[in-house]
Every structure is written in C-alpha cells, then in structure tokens.
C-alpha cells in the first residue's frame, strides 16, 4: 500500500511539475493565435520527452550518475563543453523567466510592481534550495502545480462543442491570418517548451538525489509514462481555454495575467485564486529546478561534489554556482526585459540546442558499460528515439532562421 501511495504521489508530482512558465506562455499564446492548429506539437513534444526522460532516469538509476556527469566521460571534454555552454546559457534565460513569472503571479494578488518583487522571489528561491529537502521541495511544488487542473475545469465550464474542438485539433492547418513561417516558429516554441533541456538534467540528477536504484526502474517508467502525458493534457487545456475565450475576441497573449483571464471569466474568483496558486507553484517549482540545474551541469562537468544530498560544506562550489545563478537571473530580470519575451526566446533557443542534450542520452542509454547489457534500449525504443533525433536536428537548424524571418514570431 505504501509503495502504491509513493508511486501515485510520484505521478501526481510529475503531472503538477510538468508545466512551467514556458508551457504557460507558449500554450496560451498559440491557443489565442493559432486556435488548436498546433495541438499536435504538444503531443509530439510529450512523446519525445517521455522517451528521453525514461532513458535518462534509467541511466541514473543504473549507474548512480546523472546524464551530464557521463557526457564528458563518454563523448569527450569538447562536446561536453559545448553542451555545458549552450545548456547553461539557455538555463539562465529560463531561470530569469521563471523568477519573473513568480514575481508576476505575486503582483496579481498584491498590486506591487513585479520588479520590486524579483529580489524577494530570488531570495526565497535560494532559501528553499538551501534549506528544504529535495523530496519535500519536489512534492510541495509538484502537488500545488496540480491547481492548474482548473484550466480543464475552465474548458468544461465554457462548454465547447467537443466534436468541433477535437476535430480542429485533429485537422491542423495554417490560419489565414498567419504565414507558414510564424506557424513553424510557434510550433518550434511549443516543441522547445515540452522538451526543455533542464527537465532531463533535473530529472536524472533528481533520480540520483532521491537515491534511485535498479528497484526504482518501474517507478521511473510509471512517472514518465503516466505523469508526463497527463501534464501535457494540462498544456492542451491551457491552449483550449485561450482558443475558446480569447481568440474570438482577437486577444493575443502578451502578459501572464491574460493566461489567467479565461479562468476568472468562466470559473470566477475561486478559479482565479486556484489558477494563481497553480501559476505560482509551477513557476516557483521550475525556478528551483533551473537554479539547481545550473549547479548540476557546472559541477558535474567539472567533477565537483554536487547535490542537495551533500552537505553544503562538501559541495560548496555547487551551492555557490546555484546562488550566483539566481543572483544573475534576478539582475537580468531587473533590467526590465519583458518576461514573456524572455520566456519565448528561452524556449525557442532551447529548441535550437536540443540535439546537444538528447544525443548523448541516446548514446549512453545504448552503452552496456553504463546500463548493463539487459537494460540497453530495445529496437523499438531506438527507432523512436532516432526519429526524434532527426526531428531535433531539423528543428535546431530551422530555429534561428525562423526567428530572423518572423522577427521573433511577430
């Protein structure tokens, strides 16, 4: 019974922790602008993250070492360094977006300008990273993130023509008011939001922090196979809510407050309170994950002691990187950059760097020296993962030209 509860809790945490600032913005924006015509990208993205997160969790459970730790060893210091630089830069952008997202959600209940709240949020993120246990941190924010289920309630309350909604999603096309380029650009943004690199760094490092072993392989599979797709269903609910309520009014989503507007309008004050708690939890949880991921990638590449399971005295450099990353992200946020734009760029650039993150996972998950001969990828998994690798490369090649052609999707 205890085991079942533990697995259920893990699945719920995976669902609640799936959505972050990137998913909130990308799904709300595309729903309002492209209706359900890009829903298929969320499905393609979640299959990709399921495939690769399962591999990275398996590698971590079997070797007791996270993916980034193995990249340098298996693929050499140069590839590792390229991976480190790209991942760290994108992770910093994501961290800035998440911290700003927390500040924005707090400003919606306090009326205080979000810029004044950024230093407070940054301190809170550092404090939680420093003091709270890993399991507690994961559970609290993952479970609170489940408040975002209110988007599904919103869609139900709006009472759409379900057949029409599913038909729209199943027959995608480029809307008349858009070009193929903007359609592709926002498709890449959604794909990047679903497959953000920090998710696998955090997932595999978290598996080591949680002390996963061979016995936890089943739980890894259940978390990933059930939790992530249900998390993606939340993303689709966000998209559907803005499609149904904002698109007919010609409203485009440029602010985080607009993401919550369909909920307030359809569900009322209680719904608004729940969605703001959900947005707070989703962005705060992701801010913790990206802060720790900054420390993980640097410490693992350089071979320093790392992790919250190590005492700060023994992993001092890891904790310094985490702290400095939070400070740098907060300072960047305080320059007054548009948080929604930072989010958009972070997810689009994530897409450009995806092969650097996912290629090593595929290599290591096929290497019997790391996972043992009985736990390497099967033929079917390798076929799916290889198809995704081709998609990732194509996406990476197309990202920057599309960013220039569409002037950042405008």
């Amino acid at each position, binding site marked *: 019974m205890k085991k079942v509860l533990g697995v259920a809790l893990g699945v719920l945490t995976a669902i609640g922790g799936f959505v972050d600032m990137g998913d909130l913005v990308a799904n709300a924006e595309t729903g309002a602008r492209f209706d359900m015509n890009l829903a298929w990208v969320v499905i393609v993205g979640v299959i990709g993250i399921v495939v690769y997160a399962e591999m990275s969790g398996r590698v971590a459970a079997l070797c007791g070492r996270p993916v980034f730790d193995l990249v340098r060893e298996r693929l050499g210091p140069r590839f590792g360094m390229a991976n480190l630089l790209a991942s760290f830069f994108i992770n910093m952008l994501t961290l800035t977006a998440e911290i700003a997202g927390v500040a924005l959600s707090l400003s919606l209940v306090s009326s205080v300008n979000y810029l004044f709240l950024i230093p407070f949020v940054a301190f809170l993120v550092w404090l939680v990273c420093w003091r709270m246990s890993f399991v507690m941190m994961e559970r609290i924010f993952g479970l609170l993130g489940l408040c975002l289920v209110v988007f599904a309630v919103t869609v139900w309350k709006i009472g759409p023509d379900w057949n029409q909604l599913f038909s729209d999603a199943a027959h995608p096309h480029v809307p008349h008011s858009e070009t193929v380029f903007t359609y592709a650009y926002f498709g890449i943004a959604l794909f990047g939001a679903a497959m953000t690199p920090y998710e696998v760094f955090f997932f595999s490092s978290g598996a080591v922090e949680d002390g996963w072993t061979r016995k936890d392989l089943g739980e890894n599979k259940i978390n990933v196979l059930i939790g992530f797709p249900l998390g993606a269903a939340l993303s689709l609910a966000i998209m559907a809510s803005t499609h149904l309520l904002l698109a007919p*009014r*010609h*409203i*485009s989503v*440029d*602010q985080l*407050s607009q993401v919550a507007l369909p909920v307030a309008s359809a569900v009322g004050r209680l719904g608004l309170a729940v969605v703001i708690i959900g947005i707070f939890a989703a962005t705060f949880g992701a801010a913790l994950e990206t802060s720790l991921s900054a420390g993980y990638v640097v410490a693992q590449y350089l071979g320093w002691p790392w992790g919250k399971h190590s005492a700060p005295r023994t992993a001092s450099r890891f904790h310094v990187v985490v702290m400095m990353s939070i400070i740098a992200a907060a300072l960047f946020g305080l320059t007054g950059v548009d948080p929604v*734009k930072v989010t958009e760029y972070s997810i689009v650039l994530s897409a450009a760097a995806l092969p650097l993150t996912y290629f090593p996972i595929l290599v290591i998950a096929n290497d019997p020296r790391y996972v043992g001969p009985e736990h390497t990828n099967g033929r079917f998994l390798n076929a799916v993962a290889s198809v995704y690798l081709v998609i990732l490369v194509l996406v990476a090649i197309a990202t920057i030209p599309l960013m220039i052609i569409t002037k950042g999707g*405008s």
Partner: protein
Amino acid sequence: MPSATHPRSRGIGHVERRRPRRAAALATLTIVAMLAAGCSEHSVGPARTYDDYERKSRTSAEVALSAVETVRLLAETSTDGNAWGAYTSVSLSEQEDTLAATEGDFASIQPPDHRSDDLRATLLELLGAASDHIAAVRIEARRGNLGSLADAAVPLAADSAALQQFLVSIER
C-alpha cells in the same frame, strides 16, 4: 623547441585555433545582442516604403485591438464579481502600458510619403481614443468601483469596432 616557421609552432597554430573561437564568440555575441534587442519591450524599425508603413500600422492596430478587448473582458469579469481588485488593477495597467507603448512606437515611425500621413493620422486618433478610455476604466478600478467597470468600458466597444474596421480597410 618549435620554430616560428614550423606548422605546429605556437605562432601559426595559435592563429588557426583562434579563428574558430573568434567566430564562435562573434556568433554568441550576435545572438546575445539579438536577444537583448528582442526582449526589450519596445523595438521599432524604420519604414522605408508605404507597404512597410502599412504593415507596421496593421501590427500596431492588432496590438491595440487585443488591449481594448482584454480590458472589455476584464471589465465584464470584474463587474460579474469574478475577479478581485488587485488582479483587475494590475491587468488593466499592463494593457494601458502596452497601448501607450504601441502608440508611442507607432508615432515615432517616420511616414515615408503623403499616403502614409493619412494612415498615421487615422490610426493615432484611434489609439489615442482607446488609451483615454482604458485609462478611464483603470481609474474606476483603482477607486474600487469594480461593479461599475462594465459601464466605464462601454466606449471601448466603439474603439474595438473602429480598430477592426481600420484593419479591414488596410486588408483591401
């Protein structure tokens, strides 16, 4: 000891190794600069032809229409008792800022010819009216009169219709 003329000497090798690094550094700087420019809230490029100017006016009108409609929906939601003061007030301010920035950005673009002057005058009038009406809703919200926001937002219906008509007129 390597000589200066040897291909693997420090001098030649040094230069060859540095080139790709410089290129990588330049590429990184370019991306960072692009990001910094793209993430700033207001970035406007020049309009050299009427078509360019018309495209920018369309984008500005679309942003304004979105702000006007957001405020109308917010006003409706608050009047129905579905949103609290802080949320409404912050959201209204954001839309007011967005519209003000759009108006300022569009006004700062040099119209390339006389045809563009007409377009400029028409759109700026619409943006100005919408700004005033959104400010009126924001003032009501800050005074705590959430129940009467829908009344304060009534003039925005005409702004919305005018902006939609403007968009249709430049589509032709």
